[in-house]
């Protein structure tokens, strides 16, 4: 298995760095399926009853845990495995991520055949979650090293794949299930097996074509900026030292608050648009709105991360928080004047900034902590996503329910939530404002830099 080692992935002369973003996309387009897992939920409630659920069938509330476990394990594995990913190299990480991700589908298929939900939790939730965590961070530092001139654009391209993965997985899963569903059988397990095989091949192709640059490599004609920028370090910070800095935790809150504001909306987009514009939006149109949000989530990842290369990471987040605050405050107004177009426009911009937050943060970490451990530090930062995955939906769902229980019409039940989201973004703005350069006592010393990474404690 030595071909997986970092030493076997060093690019030879003549290798084009433009091979690396497709390698990263092979991983992110596959693991982005996680956002589309809900297409299996309804069919999985009819595995025994076939045409309708029976009391022995799985409940939707129980099935919701599959995604929650996977996202939780994503955060934990990204944090714990980050250093291993960094030191083992991208090919080993991508290979392992592909194996875990595919195993997750295969084990889940067994769970569906045996009608045992715990096996599905183990498969998709645990194995799939580990594949998600390792896969998500695996190409980040490699891309940053290949594109020192455009780190935002490079990581934006990869993380864009995570947003785009659901757009492929959703229609593909529906098509696969239709192929295998008969009058007496729901084709979920077969669809899982097919997806597992497809994703394994795709992710291993990514692992095969990825390369790391030779030491000292730089793009042709590239010269590092001569004018010092206080917010772009030329030093490296060791992963566990980075966790001791206020900058890490401020960026953690910046990401968490940005994601909290977006994730709650993503989860509730379909009922929200139907309830705020009663009689104007059909179920099919609401599904179209959700699809449009996915598209802008993906495009925002590339657009904002690329923009951050020109205006700086801090200013990019200032844009997210300032524009986001105004737009969230504007949403209740769009409902009261009945402007569906303005409502859609507001959320498309908001969701583009949600995606942009994910895609810009690796370059922000690189600016703060250097390139050496950026993948591992990014792994720890992903826990902000897990936390936001709890905060966001809880805020949207519970506040809406509280409003309705207190007699507020459904069309206005989201107004308070929108103002709270705007408030959260103001806090995010302040956290971003407080981010300064990392104190030089955290920088790695020359002897530590010379030491092999694995030898460090």
């Amino acid at each position, binding site marked *: 298995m030595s071909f997986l080692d970092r030493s076997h992935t060093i690019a030879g002369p003549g290798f084009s760095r433009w091979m690396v973003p497709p390698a990263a996309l092979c991983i992110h387009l596959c693991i982005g399926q996680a956002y589309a897992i809900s297409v299996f939920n309804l069919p999985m409630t009819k595995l025994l009853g076939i045409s309708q659920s029976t009391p022995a069938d799985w409940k939707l509330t129980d099935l919701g845990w599959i995604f929650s476990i996977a996202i939780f394990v994503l955060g934990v594995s990204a944090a714990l495995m980050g250093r291993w990913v960094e030191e083992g190299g991208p090919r080993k990480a991508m290979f392992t991520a592909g194996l875990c991700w595919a195993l997750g589908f295969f084990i889940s298929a067994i769970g569906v055949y045996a009608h045992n939900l715990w096996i599905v939790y183990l498969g998709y939730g645990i194995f799939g979650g580990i594949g998600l965590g390792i896969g998500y961070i695996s190409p980040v530092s490699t891309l940053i090293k290949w594109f020192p001139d455009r780190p935002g654009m490079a990581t934006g391209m990869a993380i864009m*794949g995570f947003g*785009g993965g659901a*757009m*492929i997985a959703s229609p593909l899963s529906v098509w696969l299930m239709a192929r295998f569903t008969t009058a007496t059988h729901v084709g979920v397990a077969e669809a899982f097996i097919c997806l597992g095989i497809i994703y394994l091949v795709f992710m291993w192709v990514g692992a095969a074509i990825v390369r790391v640059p030779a030491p000292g490599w730089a793009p042709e004609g590239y010269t590092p900026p001569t004018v010092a920028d206080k917010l772009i370090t030329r030093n490296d910070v060791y992963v566990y030292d980075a966790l001791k800095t206020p900058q890490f935790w401020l960026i953690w809150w910046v990401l968490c608050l940005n994601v909290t504001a977006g994730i709650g909306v993503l989860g509730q987009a379909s009922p929200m648009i139907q309830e705020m514009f009663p009689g104007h*939006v059909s179920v099919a149109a609401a599904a*179209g709105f959700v699809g*449009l949000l*996915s*598209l802008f989530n993906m495009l925002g990842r590339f657009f904002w991360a690329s923009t951050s290369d020109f205006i700086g990471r801090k200013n990019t987040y200032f844009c997210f928080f300032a524009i986001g605050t105004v737009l969230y405050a504007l949403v209740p107004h769009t409902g009261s004047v009945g402007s569906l177009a303005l409502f859609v426009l507001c959320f498309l911009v908001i969701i583009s900034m949600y995606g942009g937050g994910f895609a810009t943060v690796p370059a922000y970490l690189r600016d703060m902590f250097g390139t050496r451990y950026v993948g591992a530090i990014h792994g720890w930062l992903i826990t902000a996503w897990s936390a936001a995955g709890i905060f966001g939906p809880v805020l949207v769902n519970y506040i809406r329910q509280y409003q309705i229980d207190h007699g507020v019409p459904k069309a206005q039940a989201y107004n308070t939530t929108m103002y709270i989201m705007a408030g959260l973004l103001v806090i995010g703005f302040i956290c971003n404002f407080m981010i300064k350069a990392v104190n030089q006592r955290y920088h790695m010393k020359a002897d530590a830099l010379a030491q092999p990474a694995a030898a460090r404690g």
Partner: protein
Amino acid sequence: MQNATQDSSMQTKVLLAWGFVGIPLAWGIIQTLINAMKIFQ
């Protein structure tokens, strides 16, 4: 001469790699846009 051949071979590889990820992504985007059109109907 050898360099030119290597360059052209690498360009082909880059094109194939982008096609490998770009074609499924384009298909997904088209499917999404077809569904999204329903909001304006």
